């Protein structure tokens, strides 16, 4: 793709043209977590709709009818973490975060990507290699001299929270009986869902994938796990739109058939599910029917479970979990525009007191906080959240997004769970209570 085409993409269309609705009221600046902690980022308004006017103005070379290629006027856009809080706060519906992301892609276009940024985007590759060599990879990625070297060579901060590779992928643990492709004997859409596990559950946290399967099956839903690749978000965040589009096409090719047949696609990573729902359209301009049906069929797992509950279909035989559970709704979840479904589900568990930590962003924003030049910013963004979690004294906390979990766990020493793991635990507790009750009842 030429730079001219990228510029045209970045400036035209519903995202780019929404700059015209900007009132310059600065509400976005008041909510920006990055501008709150550093002067390096002047705030979403300046690099977004304000700079966009220059980008729009340079779309056509005067009098020529030809695209003129003018570099993005403001390189500070690279300090945007992409958390998306600005877009939700804008009273005029300007797609600020999306505009900034696209502007960053233009900045990067035509240059060979930094090795670091390229690498952070290759989650399937690093995941596969990491799992193959898990003991060595985990040792080295948590070895200080090695991390210092990585920091110096790649500019991935030596202190940044990197997850541990699982020794086996989630997919390889799936039983032989697990359906990974549609077949005529598959249950109808009311009794089955398609699971988009993403990279985190596959390479790092297979237990999250297992908890999702347990909870979904307990509610009478067979879980189909079709082949899939990275959703593409790490590529989008690092400005590598071409590669992201290829990933998206692969996933859409697999998922669109299920979506058309009426199956729901459920994700445990709230950022992957948001990518399927919105970023294919808003960042990658995938607006064909495949992209539309997949977007409309995609659910965050808590959103789906709450929907089951609202239809009276959720098994609520949760046992007691006597604990206080700090909960951080990730910035990406807010962009779903569905409220905080995990909190409603936690309220169904007896004894569980979930506390919304009420903080905009933990700082990590996917791969942002891993980068050497951004690590301190990310930690400062999340600092009030870490302090709030520490002050509860709780040993475990919950969050829907994996990179946030890793960031918070590293910063607080709490154990971080996906909400669906908490629900799986509550089901298990309920089973134990009933088993104990029936034993007690059967005694003479």
């Amino acid at each position, binding site marked *: 793709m030429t730079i001219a085409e990228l510029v045209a993409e970045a400036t035209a269309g519903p995202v780019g043209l929404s700059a015209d609705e900007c009132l310059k*009221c*600065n*509400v976005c*600046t*008041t*909510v920006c977590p990055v501008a*709150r902690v550093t*002067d390096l980022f*002047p*705030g979403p308004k300046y690099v977004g709709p304000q700079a966009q006017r220059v980008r729009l103005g340079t779309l056509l070379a005067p009098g020529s009818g030809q695209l003129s290629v003018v570099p993005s006027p403001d390189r500070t856009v690279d300090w945007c973490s992409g958390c998306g809080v600005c*877009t*939700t*706060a*804008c*009273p*005029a*519906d300007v797609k600020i975060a999306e505009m900034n992301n696209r502007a960053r892609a233009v900045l990067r276009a035509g240059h060979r990507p930094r090795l670091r940024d390229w690498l952070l985007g290759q989650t399937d590759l690093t995941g596969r290699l990491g799992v193959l060599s898990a003991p060595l990879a985990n040792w080295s990625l948590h070895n200080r001299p090695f991390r210092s070297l990585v920091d110096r060579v790649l500019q991935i901060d030596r202190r940044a929270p990197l997850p541990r590779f699982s020794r086996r992928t989630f997919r390889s643990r799936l039983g032989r009986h697990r359906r990974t492709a549609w077949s005529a004997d598959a249950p109808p859409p009311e009794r089955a869902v398609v699971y988009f596990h993403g990279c985190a559950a596959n390479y790092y946290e297979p237990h999250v994938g297992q908890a999702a399967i347990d909870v979904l099956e307990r509610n009478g839903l067979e879980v189909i796990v079709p082949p899939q690749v990275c959703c593409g978000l790490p590529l989008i965040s690092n400005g590598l739109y071409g590669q992201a589009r290829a990933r998206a096409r692969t996933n859409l090719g697999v998922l669109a058939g299920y979506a058309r047949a009426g199956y729901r696609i459920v994700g445990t990573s709230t950022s992957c599910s*948001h990518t*399927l*729902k*919105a970023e294919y359209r808003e960042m990658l301009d995938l607006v064909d029917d495949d992209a539309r049906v997949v*977007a*409309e069929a*995609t659910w965050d797992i808590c959103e789906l479970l709450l*929907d089951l509950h*609202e239809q009276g279909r959720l098994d609520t035989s949760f046992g007691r979990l006597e604990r206080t559970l700090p909960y951080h709704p990730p910035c990406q979840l*807010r*962009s*779903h*525009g*569905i*409220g*905080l479904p995990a909190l409603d589900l936690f309220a169904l568990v007896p004894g569980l007191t979930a506390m*919304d930590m*009420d903080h905009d962003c933990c700082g990590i924003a996917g791969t942002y906080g891993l980068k050497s030049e951004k690590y301190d910013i990310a930690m400062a963004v999340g600092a009030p959240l870490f302090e709030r979690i520490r002050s509860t004294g709780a040993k475990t906390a919950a969050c829907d997004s994996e990179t946030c979990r890793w960031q918070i766990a590293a910063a607080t020493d709490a154990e971080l769970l996906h909400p669906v793991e908490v629900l799986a635990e509550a089901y298990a507790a309920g089973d134990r209570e009933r088993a104990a009750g029936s034993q007690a009842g059967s005694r003479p």
Partner: protein
Amino acid sequence: MAWADVAVVGAGLAGMTAAVSLAEAGARVQVLATGHAATHWSAGGIDAGAVAGTATSREAVERLAGQAGHPYALVAAELAGGLAWLRTTLAVEGLTLVGDLDDPLRPIPTSIGSTRRAAIVPEGAAGALPVWGPDETLFVCGPAGFKDYWPEAIAAGLGRAGAWRGEPGPGRIEALSVELPGLRARRNLSGLDLARQFDQPAWRSDAFDAIAAAVAERQRRLGHSSSPGRIALPAVLGLADHPAVLAEARARLPAIPFEVALVPPSVPGLRLFGALRAALRRQGGRLIVGEAAHGTIGADGRLAEIRSPAAARELVLSAEAFILATGGIAGGGIWADGPGSLVEKVLGLPVEGPADRAWLADDPFDPAGHPLEPAGIRTDAQLRPVAPGAGPGGSPLADNVRIAGSLLAGQRYLRERCGDGVALASGRRAAAGSWPQ
């Protein structure tokens, strides 16, 4: 599908007043808002009304309530109670509103060097209210290089004849730009950045030292040390920790400090919104920001649900009652479309407003006002929408929908300075009608 007892659309003063009141009454409340707006642009006080020839807000409210078709004709009775309720709600977060409906409207300085008439202001601005003595000096004092507050320009504006609206102004006006620690090297700072600086105890201690020294030096030079005067500072005295910052300013500075509201984002407005949001959370109410709602009134004259686009699949929110507090033309609740009609954005309710040829008035600054200003939704006394031009006895277009704030027809809130009072009173009325209190 999500559900609530009452769904509120809009998170400005009217929407948040209604939502918090409902949550306090035990209703399950869901607020949907396109974004943040009115509060973030506000000076943080309550402008209940200020029209020519009235000395107090109460007189202005009574005058406006006497005009057929003005929202106050329906809801003025809620204002005093609403104000008392708001004071109680803000007090939990340490915020105080100074002044009352019966206090004289006083000219208070603005950051462009004019004055505006106000009586109920946030505590930080209270120092601007007392009548000026002829021996008092006003020190207009701001951080050097701060682009939203230029002391020399403000002092020059306030020194012009008529600036104080016929009332006594200060005997002398002095402008001071003070170098505050560590700011020179920093980027273009906003008021919000400065407020966050003032939240840092160590930094603000040094900053108050610098301001105090500059004012004291000027006092010495003027030989006015016997009459302390007052200091007009930009409204940046802390965000999260404002009460402590204000107390420290009063204790440390050699004259009475007061805050002057700035261009958006307005820090006193952010404090007001923060306190209302905290109150909503305490009461278990919910808020989704970033979603624009729309819906259709059923054939039975009731609204069953509203929808918002969400990321991919519409969020459907059903409720027993709905309150629209989406603002007027400036707030985005009413949209002027290409062919020349005014459209209410959530339900497509018929808007009372001028024909399109009147939109382009000859003189946009006509003292009589712009014809579009009073455009809005006409309602009955319960604030349910009725047809344009219908009186309060008109039959409601929907039984379970109520309108609050500047979406209500018949007000000219910029001119009449009644926007906050109408928002508060109508928010309370709409809440009371939507759920048993």
